C-alpha cells in the first residue's frame, strides 16, 4: 500500500493550480482533505501524474454569506462547517454532517471534496441536490455555475472536466416556513448509507412544497418533488403512515440500485420507504415551529 510515483504541486494561487492541471493533460488530480483519494492512491487504484494540492490557496478556505446564500470554499473542512453558524443557517447541512464518516475523518475531509468524489451513498451530494445548491466549477476558461442536480453524472462521475476545480458550493439559507429532515441507515455508524434521505418542506404557501432526495439507492442522488403526496396525506391522523402508502410508487421508482452484500434492492426499497415517510412527516412538523419529536 504505497502510492505509485507522482509529482506534487502546492500552488498558492488558483490560476497556478489550473495551469498545473492543464499542463498535466488529464493526468492531474486535485487533493484537499484526501480522505477518499489517499487510500485509493495507496492501493494504486488511482495513479495521477501530478497531485495538485489546493490547501495553500487562501481564497478557497472561506465560508461566506451573501444574498440569502452561504458559500463554502473548496478547502473548508466538514468539521469546520459543523462548528460554524452556517450549520444552523443551512439546517440540513447541520443535520447531515454528523453522519459523514467519523469526527476524525471530518476534521480532514472537505464539503467540496465529498461532492467532487460523488460516492452515490454519500450524504453531502444528497444535501446539495435536495437544497438545489449551486456549484462553482472553475477551469482555464473561467468559472461557471452548475446546479447540484446536474452535477452528478453517475457513480464517482461528475460534470467536472479534467482541468476543472470545484472551487465552492452555494447553499440557500433557511427561511420562514422551511422544515428539514435527514436520516440514513448504515450497517455501522459512519459507514456509507444503505439508504438515506434528505428532505426539505416549505409550508409558507397555501400548498406545501416538498423535495425528497434519496442516496445510496441509485448511482447518484435522486430528487423528486413530493408536495402533492404531502398535501394529500395532511388530512389523515397518522401523517407518517399516510405518507408511507402515498410515497410507495415514488419509492419504488427512485430505488434502482443493484443489491450488494449489505443490502438487496428490495431491502433498500423498504428502508428508503420507511425513512422517506418518517423524515417527511418530521420536516413538515418542523415547518410548524415545533420539534419533530412532538409529532410522535
Amino acid at each position, binding site marked *: *500500500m504505497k502510492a*505509485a510515483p507522482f509529482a506534487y504541486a502546492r500552488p498558492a494561487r488558483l490560476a497556478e493550480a489550473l495551469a498545473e492541471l492543464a499542463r498535466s493533460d488529464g493526468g492531474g488530480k486535485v487533493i484537499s482533505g484526501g480522505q477518499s483519494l489517499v487510500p485509493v492512491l495507496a492501493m494504486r487504484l488511482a495513479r495521477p501524474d501530478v497531485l495538485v494540492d489546493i490547501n495553500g490557496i487562501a481564497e478557497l478556505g472561506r465560508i461566506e454569506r451573501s444574498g440569502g446564500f452561504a458559500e463554502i470554499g473548496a478547502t473548508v473542512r466538514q468539521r469546520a462547517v459543523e462548528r460554524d453558524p452556517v450549520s444552523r443557517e443551512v439546517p440540513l447541512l447541520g443535520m447531515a454532517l454528523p453522519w459523514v464518516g467519523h469526527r476524525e475523518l471530518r476534521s480532514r475531509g472537505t464539503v467540496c471534496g465529498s461532492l467532487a468524489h460523488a460516492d452515490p451513498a454519500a450524504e453531502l451530494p444528497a444535501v446539495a441536490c435536495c437544497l438545489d445548491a449551486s456549484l462553482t466549477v472553475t477551469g482555464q476558461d473561467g468559472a461557471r455555475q452548475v446546479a447540484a442536480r446536474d452535477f452528478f453524472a453517475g457513480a464517482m462521475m461528475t460534470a467536472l472536466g479534467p482541468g476543472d476545480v470545484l472551487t465552492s458550493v452555494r447553499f440557500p439559507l433557511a427561511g420562514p416556513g422551511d422544515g428539514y429532515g435527514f436520516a440514513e441507515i448504515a450497517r*455501522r455508524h459512519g459507514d456509507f448509507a444503505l439508504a438515506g434521505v434528505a428532505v426539505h418542506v416549505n409550508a409558507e404557501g397555501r400548498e406545501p412544497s416538498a423535495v425528497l432526495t434519496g442516496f445510496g439507492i441509485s448511482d447518484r442522488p435522486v430528487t423528486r418533488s413530493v408536495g402533492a403526496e404531502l398535501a394529500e396525506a395532511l388530512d389523515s391522523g397518522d401523517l407518517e403512515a399516510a405518507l408511507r402508502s402515498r410515497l410507495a410508487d415514488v419509492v419504488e421508482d427512485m430505488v434502482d440500485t443493484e443489491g450488494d452484500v449489505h443490502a438487496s434492492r*428490495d*431491502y433498500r426499497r*423498504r428502508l428508503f420507504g420507511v425513512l422517506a415517510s418518517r423524515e417527511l412527516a418530521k420536516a413538515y412538523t418542523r415547518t410548524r415551529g415545533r420539534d419533530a419529536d412532538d409529532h410522535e
Partner: protein
Amino acid sequence: MTRTTARIEDPALLTGRGRFLDDLDPFAGTLTAAIVRSPHPHARIRGVDLSRARRHPGVAAVVGPEEVAAELKPFPLAVKTPMPYYPTAVDKARFVGEPVAIVVAADRYAAEDAAELVHIDYEPLPPVVEIDDALAPDAPLLHDTAESNVATDRTFTFGDVDEVFARADRVVVGEYDFPRYSSTPMECYSVVAEWQDEADGPAIEAWANFHGPFSMVAVLAGAFGLPASRIRLRIPADNGGSFGIKAGIYPYVALLALASKHAGRPVRWTEDRVEHLLGSSAGSDRRMRFEAAVSADGRVRGLRADLIDNVGGYLRPPEPSTLYRCFGNITGAYRIDAVSIRSRAVVTNKTPTGLNRGFGGQQLYFGLERLMDEVALRCDLDPGELRRRNFVRGTDFPYATPTGGIYDSGDYHAALDLLLKNADYQALRQDQARARERGEYLGIGLATIVDPSATNIGYVGLATPAEQRAKGRGKSGSTEHVRISVDPNGLVSVLLGTVPQGQGHATVAQQVVADALGLPREQVRPVVEMDTATTPWTISSGSYSSRFAPLLTSALVEASERLAETIRIAGATLLGADAAAVELAEGSVRLRDEPARSVPFRHAAGVVHWDPGSLPPGVPARLYEEAAFTPPESKAPSRTDQINSSLCYGFVAELAVVRIDVETREVRLEQVFTVHDAGTILDPVLLEGQVHGALAHALGGALYEEMRYSEAGQPTATFMDYLCPTSAETTYALDSDHLETPSPLTKLGAKGCGEGSCMSLPVAIANAVADALRPEGVEITSLPLHGNVVHQLLERSALTTERKN
C-alpha cells in the same frame, strides 16, 4: 490475590513508548520487501519472468516460485494427505492473495514499483469456493497429488450410539453453517529476517510478532531442513493484538529468510491491511449437522455430529486443529454418554484458516447450542430448564466425557441460576410477551458452554487414525516455562515463555511472584520478550488457547517456591535462626513467631550473591530458578481415540436480549448478561477486560463481520466490506458476573477466560434472533444476522405462508 491494579504495560503504550516490531531496527542495513500476490483464486502458473523486476533500480533480489520450490521443502503437515504447502505458490495459485514472489529493495516504494514488473503467466482454473463445491463428485482438484479435496476425514464413535438413537423418544436434527471471520488486530504481521552462513552451516535469525504455538517453529525448521535451534526467533515485548490470527505468520518467516539469503542482507516486511485481509488467516467456516437422541423428559442421551471445515487452499498447520481443539468437550455442558463424530476438512480456493479467539468453540457451540434450543422447543421446555436437566452436575466432577475430556471443576447449575437471577429472566419473558402483543420482535437467547483452556496440543494427533500413529511418537502437552532470578539488590526478574499479545501477562505475573515471595509489586520485574535461544520453551509454548492463567502462573508458583527456599535459608542465616522458622512477608525474611525479628529480602539475596560462603553447607548459591509446569493430565490421544484436549474446563452462561426493528428489520443487541466461571480469579480488572473484548469480537461475528467470497472466488478485501464493530456498535447494556470453582489441577486454581464469550455470544445472539422471530416461522441456521438477512428470511417466510394459504 484478586486486587485491582493498573496494568504495568500501559504507561509505555499510552505515552507512545511501546516497542512493536516496526519500531525496532534489530539489524543494520535491513532492506524492505513487498510481496506479489495472486489475483486469481485458482490458476496454474505456466511461466514466471522476474527479469524486469530484478533490473529495477534499488532492487536487491526477487524470489519466485522456482527458487522456493528448489530451496525449500514443503512445510510438514499434521496429516499425511499429499497437499504440499510452501510459503509461496509453486505449481498453482490456490487463493486470491497467495504469495507468488517477493521483491527486496531499498524501501517499500521501490519494492512495490518493482513488484508490478513481476510477470506471472497464469492459466485460470475453475474455482472451488464453498464446502459443497469442494465435495462435488466432479469438483476440480486443488491438489493434483491428492485423490480429492478432502484433506482429512475421520469418524469416531463412543458408546452405543445407534442403540441410543433407536431407543430415543424423539430425534432432533439441525443443520448449520458457521461463517468465516477473523480478528483484524490493529498491528498486522511483521517480520525481519537475516540469513546467516556460519562456519557450521546456515542459520536464521528472525524477528516476528508471532506468539505461538511454538510447534510452528518446528514446522518452520522443517521447510529448511534445519534443526529447530538453528532458527533463532525473537519476539518483541509489544504485540498489537492477534487473537490467534498471528499464529499464521510462520510461512512469511520462511519466505523472508529465503529472501534474505538471496539479497545477502537482512530483510523486513510489514504486512499492510489489504494483504492482511486477503492473505493472513481467519477462523474456518464450517458446515455441520447435529442429531440429538432425546428422551421424553428432555434428556439428551446421544449425539451425532458431522463437521466439515473449509480450511482454504492448504491444510496449513496447525490445521485441522479447528476440528479437534474442542474434541474432549464436544458434548458441551451436558451429560451425553453416546456420541459419534465425523470430522472432515476440505480444501477450497479460500485463504488458509487457523486460530481465531474461541478456536473451534464458536463453530461447535453454534451447532450444539442452536440444537439445544430446538430440543427445548420440541419438548415444550424453557431453554434454561432443558439445559438444567442435561447439565453435568456439581457432584459429577471430575467428570469424564465420552470423548476423553476430564472436566476438572464447575457448578453449571449455580452459574445458570446466577445468570437468570441477574437477568431477572421471568420479568424479561413478561416483557417479551407484552412486546409480542404490540407486534414487536424481542428475543431472548441463552448459551451455556464449557470453556476449554490450557490446550493439550496432542489433539492434532486424532487427525491420523490410531493404527497409523507410531507408538512412542505421541504428541501431548500443556507445558509453560518461566525463569526467575534475583539480582544483588533483591530485585526479582521474571522471564515468561508465554509471548503475550496484549493481554497483560506481565501485570499478573508480577502480582503472582510478588505474592509468592512476600514482596511489594515494584520489586518484581517481568520480561516478556521471547528469544528462542535464551527463553525456556518447548513445543507447546505460546499464547494461544487460554494458557497463561492456568499454566504459566502455575510455573511461576513452582519457580517462586524454589527461590523462596533459598532466600529463607539465607535470611535465616542472617537471623541466626532455623530456615523452617522463617517466612517471607512484607519485603523481609522474618521469624514466623516473632515478626519483629527480620532482615530485608534484599539483604538475604545479597548474602547469596556476595557471601555464599556463609550459607549452610550444601546450599547452592542459586538465585535463579526455572520451572516447566507439566500437568500429567495432558496426554497423547489414546488408542481408542480419546483425548483430554484441554487441562481446564471453565464455564460460561450467557443471555442476549435482541430487538429487531419491525420496520427497518435492523438487529440490535440490547442487553448481555454473562456469568463466567474461570476458577480462581487472578485479576478482576483484566478478567473483565477479557470478557468485554471477547463479547465485542463475538458481536462482530454474529452481526457484522464476514469474509465473503463471490462465486468466482474473489474475497472481501477492505474494511469497506469487512465491517468490524466499533465503540458505536458496542453500546449494549452489559451485566458481567462470576462464579469461582477453583481448578484442582493448577497451582492457583485459575483457568483461562479470554475466549469464553467468543464461543457463547454468537449463538446466544442467534438463539435470541430465532426467539424474536419465532412467531413468523423463521429458522436461524447461520450468521451473520443483520437487517438484509432478516429481511430475506421474513420475505421468504411470508411467501411460504402465502403459498400454504
